[in-house]
């Protein structure tokens, strides 16, 4: 257990060196957040009644999405993992007394978390001080806040566990590009990264909600802004847990199979 924590730590220290990237990230997320909000405000002006949530709830969703982007960005992968598979450096990692799945899970998770730690607070603080409908509002109540944190953690674990499948696929295909592009496009649409899922037509929304992608970012943000409340929160959390369990199990099985057939590339 301590080994994984140290892994986390060293990754974190390593990441703190890249300050310029963090500044650039914050600037981009601001720009992106404002653009999205402006676009939606144009729609809301025409007819606010037609939308599934209030404009305040929507802006809250968007700012949360921008602050926690690094946890859920679908295009982000740990390139060192791909490299170590295709160059054969995985040989060293297999000589360690740790599970490869666990080690890489912690690694991917920590490279997401250090990015979030560096970027989320400036965005959240500024967004909190923006005038009423454009800024981020407080969570509906304290309970919602804790449930949001729990759901956020589950969502990011789920995100990483889905990434793990893509890492595992590299053992079979050598080049991860094809499956990476496929997964990114699926994620962007199905996870609510482009537009929040409740904005989709009802039938589509109902189906998308059950898919694992919705359990990553859609669920925690909707808990925070109060769109999900009461029983539906618990249903959503249960669904997150179920998907997390499924993906971890599947990922571990895939890793086990891959390691049986593994060919360490390059001599």
């Amino acid at each position, binding site marked *: 257990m301590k*080994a994984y924590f140290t892994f986390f730590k060293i990754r974190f220290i390593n990441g703190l060196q890249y300050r310029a990237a963090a500044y650039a990230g914050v600037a981009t997320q601001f720009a992106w957040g404002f653009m999205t909000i402006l676009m939606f405000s144009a729609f809301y002006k025409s007819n606010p009644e037609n939308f599934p949530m209030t404009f305040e709830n929507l802006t809250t969703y968007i700012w949360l999405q921008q602050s926690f982007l690094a946890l859920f960005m679908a295009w982000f992968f740990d390139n060192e993992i791909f490299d170590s598979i295709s160059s054969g450096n995985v040989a060293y990692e297999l000589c360690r007394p740790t599970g490869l799945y666990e080690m890489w899970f912690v690694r991917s998770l920590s490279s997401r978390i250090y990015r979030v730690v560096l970027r989320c607070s400036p965005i959240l603080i500024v967004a909190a001080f923006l005038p009423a409908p454009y800024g981020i509002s407080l969570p509906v109540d304290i309970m919602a806040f804790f449930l949001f944190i729990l759901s956020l953690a589950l969502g990011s674990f789920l995100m990483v566990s889905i990434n793990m499948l893509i890492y595992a696929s590299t053992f079979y295909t050598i080049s991860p590009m094809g499956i990476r592009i496929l997964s990114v496009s699926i994620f962007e649409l199905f996870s609510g990264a482009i537009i929040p899922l409740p904005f989709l037509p009802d039938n589509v929304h109902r189906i998308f909600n059950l898919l694992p992608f919705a359990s990553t970012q859609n669920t925690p943000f909707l808990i925070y802004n109060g769109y999900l409340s009461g029983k539906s929160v618990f249903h959503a959390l249960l669904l997150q847990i179920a998907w997390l369990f499924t993906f971890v199990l599947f990922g571990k099985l895939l890793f086990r199979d891959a390691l*049986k057939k*593994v*060919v360490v590339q*390059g001599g």
Partner: protein
Amino acid sequence: MIELKNISKTFKIARRNAGFGEAAKAFFHKEYEYVKALDNITFTIPEGEMVGYIGPNGAGKSCTIKIMSGILNPDGGTCVINGRTPWKDRINHAKEIGVVFGQRSQLWWDVPVVDSFELLKDIYKIDEKQYKQSFDELVSLLNLESIIKTPTRQLSLGQRMRCEIAASLLHNPKILFLDEPTIGLDAVSKIAVREFIKSINKNRKTTVILTTHDMQDIEALTKRIILIGKGKILLDSDLSTLKKQYTKHKIITVEYISGQPNLIDGLSVAENNKNRLVIAIDTSKISVSNAIAKLSESLDITDITVSSASAEEMVVSMYKELNI
């Protein structure tokens, strides 16, 4: 204790000829070829021994190392190392072995070497006292004080390799696999690494299995040699026995003042400079003492040195004879 019995491993390799047409054809129909990387490998290595595992490129050396360290699953055969099958009990096995792949790096690229060591300390759950002791020993033996705080990416190859070896020994493994540890090192670093491996083997009783193409490594370090070629074990014996068997000549260098060498059967001149003669003695035809006696009859000798052929030459003649 390492015991390998009938270990075999086959790789499936996609092959095609060069050219666009061939590439297009392979797009629809790939042709595979099965390459037997290891074929019935059997050997036993007792605890504390230092063994040289040699063979030409592509013979299966690294493949065997990977099987013994639990990375690869063989197709057949058994391998028991300290009572465990490496690929079935990889995690427990990993605690007891140290591996150095000369062509790869296990150190964290961007952080100082000492950070990588700390990470390994936690990965292997080495307790503080033992780590301190191991660390101090390795740092002083391998002369790492001045480089341990430098990020790995700024180290020279020789410095890095010394750190790699230290990294593999922090947890005090019982068995050390070295896959070409001296590749690309200069003479000074090579000697430092060899001395170190020797002292580790002596002091900690670590079993060492070494693959290399550098015959000086073998000469300096190991008594026993296992030779592999085309996936098969061809020889497994003492270095000195092999030398006797495969180097049927000795080199004798004679410096003399005057006289004409009397070249009897079994002697052949390799070099004849002014008053300096290099002669190869075919020991199957004439003994060294006889040859010296015969030479001193005809020459007024001032200096004489006898040397046996190097391990390098031995290996060349071995590869030739075994046709690998």
